[in-house]
Structures are given as structure tokens and as C-alpha cells.
């Protein structure tokens, strides 16, 4: 436990010293919020956004976006970079068990996810009068399941992709695909036939659904929860099978 705490503390410091990742994790969802909030505002409109204002609809979706950016961009690039440069090798040659290095990175990702989600929600409430979630108590487990799944996906990508550069490129691509198809970009209603079908391949779609349900309706979507958890478990299994130290 002490070792994990120390590892997490060091990883957290390293994260904060890396300006680019800090900006990406904290600022990108905020920028998206400001730009789209400026365009769409938060006036409820019939037929779109489940009957609530655009920003109320999108705030929980942007939390999903934060999780996705950590899961497909930051974590994989970080892990692949550490492997590429021999940092993992260096840790492994000492007394470090396999899970500890990865575990610390996941814990740090979760902390960052919480921090940037809080900043995001606070900004949405202050700037666009977005109301509080209908059920904060159901939002909490939805957030947790989603965050763990995206961390698992991040570790999986970081295990499969061997260089930081490739991980970054693949991560950006995945992130934009998710942004457009996952329900955090254009409202799902406007997507045409083929895209409607493709969006079901994107885990963010279900994460957004899982987060929106308690936020907007105070409910819980078991189907979305199951699919998100399944993605997480699949990622964990792939990681366990394919994780490489070097």
C-alpha cells in the first residue's frame, strides 16, 4: 500500500510537470464546452437533446469525453512511451510487481478524470446555467464504471501499441471518431443510417448513455452499464494476455 501510494504520488507529480498532457486532459473538454456552448446555448428545444437545453444534454456527455481523452490519448501514449524508453524495463528489474506500475498510472488517470470532470461541471453550471444532476448518487457509480473501463482501454492500447508516437496518433484518431459518433458531438438524431450503425461500435456511446441517464432522468440504464463493463473486462483480458514490459 505504501509503495502504491508513493508510486501514485510520483506519477502524479510527473503528470503535472508535463504541460501538454495537463492541457489536453483539463482544457480540451473545456474548450469543447465553450465553443459548442457558444454555438448552441442552453435553451431547451423540442425534438432535440432529449427535450433539455443543449448544454444540459452535453455536460454529462463531456464527462464521457474527458474519460475518453484520458483512456485513448493520455494513458496509451504514457504507457507506450515508458515502455519504448525502457522505463518499464527499469522498474521491472527492481522489485516492482507487474500491477504496481500500471496500477499507479490507472489511479492517477482516475484522479485526473475526477479533477477535470469537476472543473468541467462547475464551468457548465456557472456559464450555461446547467442544473445539478437529477441523481448524483446514480451518477457516481456510472462515472466510476466508465472511468475504470476507459482506464482499462487505455492500458490495453498502451500494451498493444509499441511506440508513444503511434499511440498518440492512434489515440487522437480514436478520440475524434468517438467525439463524432459517441454522442458527445453531433446529436445522435442527426446521424444517418450507416453512422447510426457505426456508433454502436464506439464505447463512448454507451458511456455517454450511462452518464446521461442519471444526470438527465435520475435513472439507471442497465443495458449501457452492462456494455460499458463488458468493454472494460474485454480490455482487461486483452491486457493480461498481451501486456509487454519491453
Amino acid at each position: 500500500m505504501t509503495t502504491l501510494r508513493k508510486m501514485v504520488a510520483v506519477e502524479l507529480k510527473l503528470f503535472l510537470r508535463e504541460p501538454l498532457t495537463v492541457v489536453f486532459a483539463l482544457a480540451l473538454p473545456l474548450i469543447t464546452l465553450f465553443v459548442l456552448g457558444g454555438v448552441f446555448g442552453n435553451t431547451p428545444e423540442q425534438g432535440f437533446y432529449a427535450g433539455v437545453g443543449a448544454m444540459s444534454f452535453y455536460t454529462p456527455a463531456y464527462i464521457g469525453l474527458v474519460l475518453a481523452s484520458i483512456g485513448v490519448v493520455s494513458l496509451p501514449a504514457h504507457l507506450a512511451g515508458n515502455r519504448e524508453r525502457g522505463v518499464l524495463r527499469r522498474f521491472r528489474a527492481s522489485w516492482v510487481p507487474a500491477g504496481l506500475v500500471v496500477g499507479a498510472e490507472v489511479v492517477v488517470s482516475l484522479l485526473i478524470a475526477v479533477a477535470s470532470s469537476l472543473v468541467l461541471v462547475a464551468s457548465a453550471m456557472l456559464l450555461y446555467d446547467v442544473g445539478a444532476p437529477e441523481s448524483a448518487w446514480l451518477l457516481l457509480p456510472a462515472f466510476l464504471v466508465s472511468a475504470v473501463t476507459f482506464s482499462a482501454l487505455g492500458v490495453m492500447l498502451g500494451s498493444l501499441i509499441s511506440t508513444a508516437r503511434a499511440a498518440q496518433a492512434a489515440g487522437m484518431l480514436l478520440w475524434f471518431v468517438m467525439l463524432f459518433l459517441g454522442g458527445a458531438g453531433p446529436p445522435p438524431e442527426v446521424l444517418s443510417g450507416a453512422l447510426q450503425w457505426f456508433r454502436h461500435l464506439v464505447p463512448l456511446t454507451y458511456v455517454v448513455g450511462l452518464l446521461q441517464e442519471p444526470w438527465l432522468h435520475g435513472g439507471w440504464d442497465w443495458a449501457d452499464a452492462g456494455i460499458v463493463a463488458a468493454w472494460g473486462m474485454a480490455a482487461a483480458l486483452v491486457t493480461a494476455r498481451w501486456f509487454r514490459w519491453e
Partner: protein
Amino acid sequence: MAAVVTVEHLHKAYGPVAAVEDVSFTVEEGEIFGLLGPNGAGKTTTVECLQGLRRADAGTLRVLGLDPQTQGRELRGRVGSQLQESALPDRIRVAEALDLFASLTPGAADWRRLMEQWGLAGKGKASFASLSGGQRQRLFVALALVNEPQVVFLDEMTTGLDPAARRVAWELVEAIRARGTTVVLVTHFMDEAERLCDRLAIVDRGRVVAAGTPQGLIDLHAPQVLVRFSTAAGDLDFLYRVPGVEAVTRRREQVEVAGTGPVLALVAAALVERGFVPTDLRGERATLEEVFLRLTSRSPEEEGA
């Protein structure tokens, strides 16, 4: 003296390519043992198998009585390791790295003292990225020692260092041994092996081609001694009667006597006996480099085979 490392018939292949064909050696407690060989000879693979970082395909390995294959983690807690091609995160600070690695091992050394011992006292707040090659090397050695190891593996620790930094690194290796730690040194530098190692194994194409003390290897594989001096005197035929002398060549006043064994002492005695007392009498012995080249160079037939 107890053996702390034993390797018997280690074999390791990556796909169809055998990195290590058949390697056996033992390392005694408290010695500096060298694995010397050209790049790609299988040295690094051997030490990685010894630390349980790679799985051997065949052979018996024991380090401190533990099997690296099945007791790798326990083993890594008791050995120190300076790996080739390893790094720390760019932005980690020297003190943080030492503190972290110390906290990762039970019964760790006082890392602040290590930091001082290895000349990093003023560098505690410096980031890894800002360190020079020599400083990084010292940090890696300090990290390798942080768990108070009984055996340290040093893999190509002086590659990429300038000559001054190499000398410093050599002193560090001797300092490690002076604290009672056994050192396994992987290198492709002959001078380094000759200067530091108590015993060494020369590895080539995945096999141990010779093993022994540096001096013993030279005596066995490159016993030639050249004795040089200068004299104006004409007749030196008596030198042929000195035991061990094989050839005497002269170029004006420069005389070169080639032979094996204690030729220098015997030639000197013979010269003095006949009233020659050259002031520039000196002997030249082969170095490990000649042994190495002799054992690892291949004839064209062999290359084609």
C-alpha cells in the same frame, strides 16, 4: 568461496535465431566477473535470463540459490541491476527516483547516503532529462544498490561515456566490490575487462569460448613475450640458448627477442652475465585484446560453413 551464480548449458532463442547457444560459468562470492564478447554475442540475454527478465529455453540457472525462472521477484529483491537501454521518466528528479526505488524494496539502504556516495548530492532536484551521461550512469548504479544487493549486474555501463567518465565508472565498480558485493560485468571493452575483472568468460556467438583470469587467458592463448633493448655490440647469438627464446631480430641497434614464458627475466640475466646492461630493456606482453581476437576471429572457411 561460495558460488553465487551458476549457469549450466543456458540456451535461449528468439524465434529461429539462437541468441545463446550453450553458456556455462560460475561466479564466486565477492569477485568481479566479466562477460566479454562482441555485440550480439549473447551476453545481455544471458544476464537478463539470470535476473528472470527472460525465460531460458534450456539450462540450469541459480543466483543466490534461487531459480530466476520461478523465483524471479524474490531474486530481483536481492540483486541489483543496471540495464542496457533503460531509462527513467524525463521529469523525475534524482531524489524522487532514489526515494521511490528505496520504498519499493523492503530493507532498502539509506538513499540519501547513496546519493552522496555516488556524487549526486547536489543533483537531488535535477530532472533525469537534465543529467549528463555520466550522472545518469551513477544514478543507475545508485539505484542498483538501493536494495543492498548481494549481486549486481552491470550491463555495458561505460558505453557512451567519455574516457574520463569511464575511469570514474571503473572506480565505482571497484567501490561496489569493496563493499562486499559480487559484480557481474557485461562489456565489450577489452581494457575494461582486463583492468576490472578477477575472472571472465569470453562469449562469442552464444558460446563461452574461454574462461579464466585475464592473466591466465593471456598466458594460455597469447603467451608471446617481446623483449626489446638496444645495444651496439655485435654478437648476440648466446640469446638463442636462453630457454623460451624463439627468435632474435635486429635493426641497427634495436634488438627484439621473441619467446614465451619468463623470457624477460632470463634474457635480462643472460645479458647481465655477459656484461650488457641496456638501460631501455623492456618486455611487452600480449593484452586481452589479442586473446580476444585470436579466439573470436574466424577463418574464411569457418564463415562459409
